[in-house]
């Protein structure tokens, strides 16, 4: 066991995984409420909280730091809502006002008082996940990396929260009015969610810094949202993405000798990119195929209806020929030929010299479209 914790690689990957997993538990509720950018605001402004708690108490990690700095995250949201509530600023602009101000104050305090401690402006952005194994803590006779301990605690708190309040969170996310009517206090629950988000961001701060945390809390749930329609599955999918990201990110970072936390976030983004393109139902490719198929179906429908409309009329001679498809339906040459070939192959249309004739099946298809009330009614 101790050998495991002494291995830097394990500590780094385990910390990265816990950051991603803890964030993936909370993220779905944020993106489903369209509040993903609150995590952006929170993860920036905890910098002020971290610096303030450090200046006041001297604590750089541990429960005091996590709880104290997490309050700044909640404060950001409260201030944003207060500014939006004056009715003078739209809520998106309010977010864009509050967190840069708090973040700027935090960076300035760092500049003034903390130029030589470990939380310098560089760490704010990058985190130091590569060094987490250096700073250890005695837990149950084992010497465990400090970041791993606090990240584990944060992940456990998040897991306990979503397990205990699963039903309340679910109703509050999809139907806040109903949740309110049922006495489930959705607003209070949302604030607890934001508090835990801030706390997790603070715990993750040493490992991944303030800004990369956004990658871990937004992208895995976004990936899951493209892969499933069920909230129950979004959390495990998000956790799986976190697993892939920590393993793959660490491997690639070693390979190319680049930032480990940055690479983990990049791999998370690659997972999202893959889901955007190739998700079975909600991906871009699937949507394009679906559109192409329905366009083809519509064209075949247009062909049989066109033929059926002129079937027994005097204009039949000039309407029901291949040339009319180009002129009257305004189809380009190639498309007219393709549709015709498909119609013949499907047994809806047959050709007699120049003339295009409907088969019995084609006539039935046209009637079903033109006079749908007859269908099945007999």
């Amino acid at each position, binding site marked *: 066991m101790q050998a495991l914790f002494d291995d830097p690689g394990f500590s780094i990957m385990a910390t990265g995984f816990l950051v991603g997993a803890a964030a993936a538990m909370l993220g779905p509720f944020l*993106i489903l409420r*369209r*509040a*993903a*950018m609150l*995590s*952006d605001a929170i993860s*920036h402004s905890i910098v002020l909280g971290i610096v303030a708690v450090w200046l006041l108490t001297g604590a750089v990690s541990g429960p005091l730091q996590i709880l104290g700095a997490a309050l700044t995250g909640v404060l950001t949201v409260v201030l944003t809502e207060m500014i939006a509530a*004056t009715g*003078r*600023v*739209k809520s*998106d*602009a309010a*977010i*864009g*006002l509050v967190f*840069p*101000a708090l*973040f*700027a*104050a935090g*960076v*300035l305090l760092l*500049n*003034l008082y903390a130029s030589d401690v470990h939380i310098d*402006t*560089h760490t704010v*952005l*990058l985190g130091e996940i590569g060094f987490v194994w250096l700073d250890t803590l005695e837990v149950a006779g084992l010497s465990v990396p400090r970041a791993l301990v606090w990240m584990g605690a944060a992940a456990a708190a998040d897991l306990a929260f979503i397990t205990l309040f699963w039903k309340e969170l679910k109703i509050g996310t999809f139907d806040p009015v109903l949740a309110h009517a049922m006495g489930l206090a959705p607003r209070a629950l949302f604030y607890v969610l934001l508090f835990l988000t801030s706390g997790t961001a603070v715990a993750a701060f040493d490992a991944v810094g303030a*800004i*990369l945390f*956004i*990658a871990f*809390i*937004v*992208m895995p*749930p*976004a990936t899951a*949202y*493209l892969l499933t329609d069920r909230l129950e599955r979004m959390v495990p999918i998000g956790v799986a993405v976190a697993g892939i990201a920590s393993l793959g990110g660490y491997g690639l*970072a070693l390979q*190319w*000798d*680049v*930032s480990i*936390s*940055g*690479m983990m*976030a*990049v791999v*998370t*983004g690659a997972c*999202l990119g893959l889901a*955007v393109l190739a*998700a079975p139902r*909600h*991906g*871009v490719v699937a*949507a394009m195929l679906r559109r192409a198929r329905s366009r083809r179906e519509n064209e075949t429908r247009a062909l049989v209806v066109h033929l059926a409309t002129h079937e027994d009329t005097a204009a039949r001679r000039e309407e029901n020929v291949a040339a009319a498809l180009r002129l009257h339906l305004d189809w380009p040459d190639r498309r007219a030929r393709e549709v015709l070939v498909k119609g013949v192959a499907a047994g809806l249309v047959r050709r007699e010299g120049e003339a295009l004739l409907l088969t019995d099946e084609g006539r039935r298809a046209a009637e079903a479209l033109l006079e749908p009330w007859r269908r099945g009614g007999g």
Partner: protein
Amino acid sequence: MGLVEILSDHTLQTVAIGAAILGAVSGVLGAFAVLRQQSLMGDALSHAALPGICLGFLWAGSRDLGAILGGALAAGALAALTVMAMTRLTRLKTDAALGSVLSFYFALGIVLLTLIQRQAGAGQAGLEAFLFGQAAAILREDLQVMGVLALASLGAVALLWKEFKLVTFDPVFARTLGLPVVALEAVLTVMVAVAVVIGLQMVGVVLMAAMIVAPAVAARQWVTRLGPMVVISAAIGMGAGVTGALISAMGRGLATGPLVVLAASAAVLVSILLAPGRGVIWDWMKRRAERRALGGQRVLTAIHALAAEHGDPEYPAEQSMLDVYFGGGTAAALDRLEARGAVRRAAHFRTEGVHWVLTPQGQAEAEDILAGGEGDRP
């Protein structure tokens, strides 16, 4: 350092001119972004510029501003396109798309930054300044690049003023007029990326969001028309930029970005509180005056009703009785009524409390209020 020395110092002049250019451009373009509710797009684009900066550096092989800004612009434009594509082609909402793009591009930038660090050694020191801004590092030649970009974007705004205005306030109407709305919106978004690029050296990628949002929000409080708003927004941006940049350039190694952002935030705070007609404080004072006037009117009509009930226009109403009737707190209202001569104190026994009698003026006022039916006119 005295004022004359500040004005003649070469570095400070450069810094001040750069800050003024930045403030003008971000103020003008931010006004459109805020009105189009795209405040957070500025945030995403500024973070997304980081990989572009790194690629520009890698491409040029040195800290060549043209290449770096070109890279940043390309990355910003690509990020904007990614956000648009994600929201249009998949079911992800704007917030999740912004959060994903912001964090993914930033992570990519971090990875590239560490790559450059390994390769170039000392050369990357110049790049770190792009994170939080280092006004003192701006060179005279840099001003030319910034100036050209600024002229190009401000010129575009001047040329397409009417079109941009229409697209901002009524895109549907703009479409019915046959304007290329999507293209115009894309141009406005890409120009936000230009503003970000101009601010990179001054404010840095992390805090540029505030320079887009803050001056525009502050300006919006003072005026209701687009033209004046754009001008005031540019002025506030310039003021905040010059203030922050000068403090940073003179001071003890304080990063410029946070100072500029805090100056802009202060402008927002003052505007929201004090802007004439719209400010929160005026609003609050007006409401207080109205509440007081209403309280006075109610007390006045109550005394009048008591007098009528007793058939004595000079009936002395006891203050403690009025307190009981209104649930307390009539003293202040009575004092104000007395001050404007609507009531006067009546003689009373020493053992009793103060009594009040309507003056003829007070009677007329009370009857006027009652004739108005509601009695709550101002």
